[in-house]
């Protein structure tokens, strides 16, 4: 690192033209923006889909011109086709979980923050990093292309359980649409692995002088643990997907057995559909934390900085993230309590699942203690961080019900589950992402976002979010299964239709609120007030770079680190904050 002087830096990075600067960039900051913008576009698509199927769920069978405008033959006379309904549910889930909350969240903030926060000129391999984005883009484009296939996109649910996903006879979306889904997902996994390896190597090897692991900001810690988790679990999804490709295209029987469909007995024997579920959830559950941990990391940074107070229990925060990551790898069976798995195995998974609540509780109490006796500056980022604490509590607590196998029997696959995971994983992660965008926007674009639009965005979003997802718990308790095109076949659910209508109204409101964010984002890139070097008075190293850092981040030498990132309001100092690169005075003790 030492010989990364200014001279070397300029020699490395000649004057960029349009292509090398914006398109084939190897600068981690540009790649981060590329991830963010791609994820935002995918987010709009995913959100529009949810509005479309909420129209059907709120007012079943009613005609909406907007559906025909966007979906054409899939919404004849403005009424959504049942197969398209399932496809929308499937692709909404896939896009949101993978493209937005995994690629978008980790891709944006790992790329932006890791080198800046640890004091590195760039990622360990700029080239791999660029490839990671291009695989991600390819994956997103193929996912979008699958929407235009004659037989429709994949429609077996985002969990693509075979045999439904393996047999085009069972559902039209399992034809070419499913093939494209699998290709897209394969590219996505490659992207995620290339990124993950890079993040890990960078954090281990490229920390600047003095940046020991126990001085690293919690955001970087979270991104580090996330990358390890992804590296351990994504390959398993890849193998699951490949075996599914074999079953679909080459006549193997990994997941298929004893099937009689369309008047025909299939030749597949000896496979098990349950095997797929084990492989899928071996990724699928860690995936929840791959999505959530970066959001928690961002929140830790924002809560501490904006409370002008050190994060409470730094080591406990790191420890609880490690514990959550470890536990997340041994709880996947709680998605499968009613698949007929051995009840003893079920009890093991109940045990490990409920243990996750302990480190989660530690995190929540540490956030609360950080706020206690703080001096809280309400930036939009801080509001979203507080929103995350609220959703993490609300969604986490209902997880205690779902994780209990005896209780899961009755609410498995009902709207209770939909409400639970959208709050704890969807809303929390997206709040973390919004918080991060508002907080680091000045670092990305050198300008500030409009705070008043940010406030409006937050309050409408959280209101509509709870308006949509909280009542779903009660629909689930009433026994309404998820992924139903409508409930009209069941008179016992008639009385709950007005709740569904209310949920749909909130969903539309929530979607409209995102327009405020998009407007603010694009407007601020061009017209926002210019940012100062350290607008939030933060200690972390990313704010020691110039407002618009070039490729290489620091024009001069890389700063040396002398302290942790949370020296806010030290009682023995007059200043409010002490950046990590400020050397200690002679009589100063390192606290943390």
């Amino acid at each position, binding site marked *: 690192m030492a010989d990364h002087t200014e001279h070397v830096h300029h020699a490395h990075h000649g004057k960029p033209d349009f292509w090398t600067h914006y398109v084939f960039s190897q600068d981690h900051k540009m790649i981060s923006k590329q991830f963010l913008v791609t994820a935002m576009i995918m987010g709009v698509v995913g959100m529009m889909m949810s509005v479309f199927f909420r129209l059907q769920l709120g007012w079943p069978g009613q005609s909406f011109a907007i559906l025909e*405008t966007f979906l054409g033959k899939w919404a004849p006379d403005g009424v959504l086709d049942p*197969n398209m309904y*399932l496809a929308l549910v499937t692709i909404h889930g896939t896009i949101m979980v993978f493209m937005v909350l995994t690629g978008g969240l980790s891709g944006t903030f790992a790329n932006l923050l890791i080198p800046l926060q640890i004091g590195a000129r760039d990622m360990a391999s700029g080239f791999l990093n660029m490839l990671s984005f291009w695989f991600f883009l390819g994956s997103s484009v193929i996912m979008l292309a699958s929407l235009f296939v004659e037989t429709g996109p994949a429609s077996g649910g985002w969990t693509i*359980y075979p045999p*439904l996903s393996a047999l085009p006879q*069972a559902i039209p979306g399992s034809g070419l649409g499913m093939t494209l889904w699998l290709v897209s997902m394969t590219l996505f996994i490659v992207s995620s692995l290339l990124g993950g390896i890079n993040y890990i190597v960078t954090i281990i090897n490229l920390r600047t002088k003095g940046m020991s692991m126990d001085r690293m900001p919690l955001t970087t810690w979270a991104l580090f643990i996330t990358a390890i988790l992804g590296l351990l679990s994504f390959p398993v999804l890849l193998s699951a997907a490949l075996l599914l490709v074999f079953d679909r295209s080459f006549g193997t029987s990994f997941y298929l*057995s*004893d*099937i*009689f469909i369309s*008047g025909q*007995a*299939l*030749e597949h024997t000896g496979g098990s*559909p349950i095997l797929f579920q084990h492989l899928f959830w071996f990724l699928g559950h860690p995936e929840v934390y791959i999505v959530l941990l970066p959001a928690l990391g961002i929140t830790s940074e924002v809560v501490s900085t904006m409370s*002008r*107070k050190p994060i409470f229990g730094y080591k406990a925060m790191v420890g609880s993230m490690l514990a959550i990551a470890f536990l997340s790898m041994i709880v996947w069976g709680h998605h499968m309590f*009613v*698949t*007929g798995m051995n*009840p003893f195995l*079920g*009890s093991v998974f*109940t045990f490990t699942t409920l243990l996750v*609540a*302990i480190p989660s509780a530690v995190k*929540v*109490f540490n956030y*609360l203690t950080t*706020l*206690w*006796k*703080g001096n*809280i500056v*309400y930036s939009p980022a801080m509001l979203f961080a*507080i929103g995350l604490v*609220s959703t993490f509590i609300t969604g986490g*607590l209902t997880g205690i*019900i779902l994780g*209990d196998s*005896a*209780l899961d*029997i*009755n609410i*498995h696959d*009902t709207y209770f589950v939909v409400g639970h995971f959208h709050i704890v994983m969807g809303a929390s992660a997206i709040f973390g992402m919004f918080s991060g965008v508002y907080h680091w926007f000045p670092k990305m674009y050198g300008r500030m976002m*409009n705070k008043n639009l940010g*406030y409006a965005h937050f*309050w409408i979003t959280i209101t509509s979010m709870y308006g949509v997802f*909280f009542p779903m718990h009660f*629909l689930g*308790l009433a*026994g309404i*299964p998820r992924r139903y095109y409508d409930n009209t076949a*069941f008179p016992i659910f008639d009385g709950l239709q007005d709740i569904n209508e209310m949920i749909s109204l909130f969903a539309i409101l929530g979607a409209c609120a995102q327009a405020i964010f998009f*407007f603010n984002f694009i*407007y601020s890139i061009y017209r*926002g007030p210019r940012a100062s070097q350290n607008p939030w008075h933060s200690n972390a190293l990313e704010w020691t770079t110039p407002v618009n850092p070039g490729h290489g981040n620091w024009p001069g030498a890389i700063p040396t680190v002398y302290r942790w990132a949370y020296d*806010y*309001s030290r009682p023995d100092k007059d200043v409010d904050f002490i950046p990590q690169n400020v050397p200690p005075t002679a009589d100063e003790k390192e606290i943390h």
Partner: protein
Amino acid sequence: MLNLLIVLVVILAVVALASVVRVFELGADLRGHDPSAVTESDNRTQSTILVFAGICYMAYVFYQIFWGPEVLPVAASVHGVKTDFLLNLTWAIILPVFFITHILLIYFGYKYFHRSDRKSDFFAHSTKLEAVWTIVPTIVLSSLIVYGLSTWQEITGPTPEETMVIELYSKQFDWTARYAGDDNRLGPSGYRLIEGGNTLGVDLTDAASNDDKVVRGEFHLPVGKPVLFKFHSRDVIHSAYMPHFRTQMNCVPGMTTQFHFVPTMTTAEMRVETGNPEFDYLLLCNKICGAAHNNMQMNIIVESEADFNAWLAGQKTLAEQLSKPVESEIKPQQAEVLEASTETPNGI
């Protein structure tokens, strides 16, 4: 044309909004303020909204808690009563946690909003506090785990003797029930034996198959008697969900899953209980299975044992239904047919 108009209106709205924002920012600039800086009045306003919104949220949750007992149907099985108790116990633990943590979040958020004459309390670490909120959740969760697992063990425990066996057979998009008959043994079946009226692929050469009874549309259960369900699927995964009995089990092609329970209330009793004279117990499909997933159902009638026996006696046995006598003298012929169908699965 209308769409074009909508697009134009949206563009104009965006331009108008941009101009408004610009005016505000320029105004702040002129007054010498940094329009992006969070001011003391912002902190006061936002923390006040936080209190207001937080109270609304908690009231909203509090109000919905009273929906819970409304929407959750009355449990109509022995184990359902136990899981409902466990559910209520869990609510009793998590709801106070929810309210306490939210009250703290909102209270701290309001009390400690930024004032320039104050300094935060530098409080970075406390082993005692952290130990408390590691150990207390551990104890509470341990007791929940122990209680939950004991309930789980009761539910999934061995089937009591003299349990009536019923097969629930699923396919896109309907259910079929098969009663084991007098011998309480289901005849063996296989997907390659599916042919004509024999939609479950029952092996008609087996003696246990003779007295099996197949019903569609609705099936009946005797109240107070244990029933063991064996679940099958012939195409994709379905899930047999009977919310009133707190019962759910996936139907997976290629394997048999099972679940047993004791229904405790007859349909007639339940109609009185719910005040709905048209109430029927339901079997729904709860695993995405295709276009008509949302309408894959079967009614369940629970009745006294005498009524049940009378109903069952009135059903035809499989042998009668298929009107192919499975007497021993024509068995070789039958076996040939079966063999043939095994070899040419397409010849249907």
